[in-house]
C-alpha cells in the first residue's frame, strides 16, 4: 500500500499501558506477513499491459500503482497466494520460490 506506515508495538508493562475496554486505534498494524510466503510474485513490467487486474484482485491489497504503467508489490504484506499471477492475462507475473530469491 502506498505510503503505508507500520505502528510500533505498544508498551504493555504498566497497568496504564493496557487499552481501556477491548479497544485499539484503527489501522494499527505492528506485524508484517512476509514470513507467510513460500513463493513470491514477481512482476515483469515489460509484459504488463496495465490492466489493473492484479491490483483489483489481490485479497491482501498488496499491489498498488505507483505511476502510470507501474504496479508494485508490497512484499511486507504479500502472502504469496498466487492470485495475481494466475489472473494476469498477460502472464506478466511469475511465482518464484522464496528460498531461491
Amino acid at each position, binding site marked *: 500500500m502506498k505510503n503505508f506506515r507500520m505502528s510500533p508495538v505498544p508498551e504493555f508493562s504498566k497497568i496504564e499501558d*493496557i487499552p*481501556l*475496554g477491548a479497544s*485499539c*486505534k484503527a489501522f494499527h498494524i505492528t506485524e508484517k506477513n512476509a514470513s507467510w510466503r513460500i513463493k513470491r510474485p514477481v512482476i515483469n513490467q515489460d509484459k504488463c499491459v496495465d490492466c489493473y487486474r492484479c491490483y483489483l484482485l489481490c485479497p491482501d491489497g498488496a499491489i498498488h500503482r505507483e505511476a502510470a504503467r507501474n504496479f508494485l508489490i508490497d512484499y511486507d504484506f504479500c502472502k504469496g497466494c498466487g492470485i495475481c499471477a494466475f489472473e494476469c492475462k498477460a502472464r506478466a507475473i511469475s511465482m518464484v520460490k522464496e528460498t531461491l530469491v
Partner: protein
Amino acid sequence: MSRFEFLNGNEALAWGVKLAKPGVIAAYPITPQTIAVEKIAEFVQDGLLDSIYLHVESEHSAMACSIGASATGVRTFTATSSQGLLYMAECLPYASGARLPIVMMNANRAMATPWNIYGDQMDVMYVLNSGWIQLFAENAQEALDMVIQSFKLAEDSEVMAPVMINLDGFVLTHTYEKVNIPEQELVDSFLPPMQLQSHMMNAQHPTSVCISAGNAHNMEFKLKQHLDLLNAIAVFSRISKEFGNFFGRYHGGAVEGYYYSDADVLLVTVGSIAGTVKEVVDAMRKEGHSVGLLKLRMVRPFPVKQLAEACKNAIAVGVLDKNISFGYEGTIYTNVNSALLQSGVFVKTQNFIGGLGGRDIPKKEIRSMFKVLLDNLEEKKVRFHNLRCT
C-alpha cells in the same frame, strides 16, 4: 418543582430514565419488566422523551443494539428479566469488557422450569461474574433515584462499566407508592450529558472496538477491568452522598444498615425484602431483642470491607437469600461467608432461603429467622422458609 406521584416500581424507574435522557433505548418485553418499557415507549411516542426506541426482536438483540449504540458514545438504556436476562447472557461480559456504560434494569423473576413469572432473585445471581455493577433497589423511590445515580456511576472515568439495577418482580415493580419526581434541571446539572470516550467509535479517530486479545495480552485487560470495577464502591458512595446533597434523599452507599452497629445478630439481605425486615427489626427491638439488618445495595463489586466491619461484633449473622444455587446454598450467603472468612471475622452464620418462585416472606418467618440466629444456629446451614411441604 419536584412533585409527588403514585407510581409502581416500574413506572418510577421509567421516570428515572426519562430524566436521565438516554439517546437510545432498546428493549424486549418480558413480565414483570413490561410496564417500565411501556411507560418509556409512551414517553417517546408522546414526544416527552427525545430518544430512539428500538423495538428489537429478542433480549440478545436488545443488549447487542445497546452495545452498538453505546459504542458510538451515546447514553443507552435497556431492561429485562429472568429468561430474557439469561437469553442475553453472552452479551453481558461482552459489554463490560468493552467498558460500555450501559444501564439496564432487571426485574428479578424466577427462572424456568417450572415456569414462573413471580419475583425471586435466581436470575441476577447467574450474572454476578459478568463485570456489571449490581445494584438492588428497595422501593420505587430508590428505583427512580438509582437510574440517575447509575448513569453517573457507569460513566465515571474511574469506573466506566455497565450497571444493572435490580427491582424485585411484582413486590417492587408492580407495587404503587408515593414517589418524588425531581426537577429536570436539577437532574441535568447532577448528570451532565455523556462524553465520547477514547475507547469508543469516533468519526475523527477511528477505533477498533471489541477486539481480540490472545494469551499474551488478555489477562491484563481482565485485570484492568477488575481493578476499575473495584473503584465503583467508593465512587458509588460518593455519588450517593452527592445525590443526597442535590435532591435531599440519601439511600446509603454500597450497604445500608438498620440498627446494625450494636446488634447481636444481623440479617443480611438485598432488595425489597429489606423493607419487611425493617418492620420486624422495629418490633423485635421493642421487645428487647438485639437484632439488626444489613442491606447490600451493591453486590458487585462486593463490599467486603463494609460487610466485615458491620459484622465484626455480631454473635451470629444470617443471610436471607431469594435464590438457591442448586446443590449448595443461597448465593449471597456464599459471598458473605467468603468475605467474613477472608476478613478474619469468624462469626457463626446461617442461610435462610425464602421467596422462591414468588412465595411470600411474611413477617413471622423473618421473626423465626432472627429466632434461629438468637437461639439455636442449626447444623444444616440452608434453611427453607414458608414451605408448604415437609
